């Protein structure tokens, strides 16, 4: 059985979700994912939107995974007197 391709409308929507999620930090993306999971699990999502909600959740999940795997630590060194960044960092 061949897998159905998502419609163009859905593809556009997913692109928008990804772009929105890219602006979230880890905690925000995790919070959005947990909220969505809670809605899914108490059956408050209309059936017609179920598949989309799951896809939306996967976008948040993927954002969290990407942050965990690819982020490099940001280290800033401050001058102890002026508390302005030094060039050592």
């Amino acid at each position, binding site marked *: 059985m061949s897998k159905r391709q998502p419609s163009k409308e859905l593809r556009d929507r997913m692109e928008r979700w990804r772009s929105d999620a890219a602006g979230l*930090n*880890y*905690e925000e993306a995790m919070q959005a*994912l*947990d909220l969505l*999971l809670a809605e*899914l*699990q108490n*059956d408050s*999502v209309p*059936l017609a939107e*179920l*598949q989309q909600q*799951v896809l939306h*959740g*996967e976008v948040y*999940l993927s954002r*969290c*995974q990407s*942050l*965990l795997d690819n*982020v*490099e*630590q*940001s*280290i*800033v*060194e*401050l001058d*102890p*007197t002026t*508390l302005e960044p030094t060039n*050592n*960092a």
Partner: protein
Amino acid sequence: MSVDRLPTYSVAELNTAIGSLLERGFAPRFLLEATVSRPQLKKGHLWLTLTDGAASISGVVWASKLAQLSYKPEDGDGVTVVGKLNFWAARASLTVQALDIRPSLSTVLRDFERVRQLLEEQGVIDPSRQRRLPSQPSTIAVLTSVPSSALADMLRTAAERWPLTQLIVVPIPVQGAVASKILSTLKGLAERSVDLGIQALVLARGGGSREDLAVFDDEALCRVLARYPVPVVTGLGHEDDLTVADLVADHRAATPTAAIVALLPDRDAARQGLVQRQSRLRDALLGRILRERQRLQDRAFVLQQQSPLERIRRHRQELAQKQLLLQALSPERWLKRGLALVSNASGDAIPDLQSVKIGDQLSIRMSDGTLDARVDQIQRSSPKTTS
């Protein structure tokens, strides 16, 4: 030994020769463990007597050096002096010039106890004031010496554990004249903590002697830490070292690395959490479909119960049950067991002899027919006696 072979000096020459001997023959730097006696400031220089009870020698800390010392010795303090000998030829006087003075362990512990007791009495040290550490801080400040192995360890641990947190490293001197500098840096950082987004502070220093940690027993410094705007985690010295700063902190970690572990979440555990959420997301879809299917089946059943055919079937079933009940209660069952039904000429049932007279026509119904009879004689049963 002949007298003319003995060296002959003027006083100045003798003193110069002694000075020269000392210069060549004595260690240029040495450590001296002593107790301070009668310290006195004269023209900015600190003069004192260094003694061990049995012997004593005078000592001096020049004003230029004195300004750099974080610790000012007081009468009776046990100290370790990094010194060199000063010999003044004019008076042949010998003095230990102190390049650095550190309190001895006993002095450090005495100060620790004093400050601890004071801050406990004033409620500054109070475990109930300890705040919870943020679970996933976006930014933390790390105050430690730079560069240092402690910092390298902390950076490595932070990178392994939770690279999402921004680290603001603020170098602090951990030896020499430090208390006032640390205090000033801490205050400045506290004022800017909101701007910088700092959610917690790590105060760390790698291993060393307990005496090296004396600065973290400083009363003013500990008061600032106790009311710091963000939670404070200390990672000072070795596991066994306890300073007053540890007691006022919101969390005391045994080492600098342990401070980072206490503050930053574990990336592996977070990955596990994501895997669980992924499976919950997939199960949510499947689970919902199963639940909806069950709901549909329940409704189909209810609907089926309301169909006309089903209602007729139920009525028939009820009728059949009632028929069985009627049959069970019918007198036919008694007739088949040999009993008979007696009725008079009008067809009324005769349950006893009260309404029967001699000559009455009676009808006796049995299981397979009816007998017509006439009453010839009536014999009443004698009433039962109760004993």
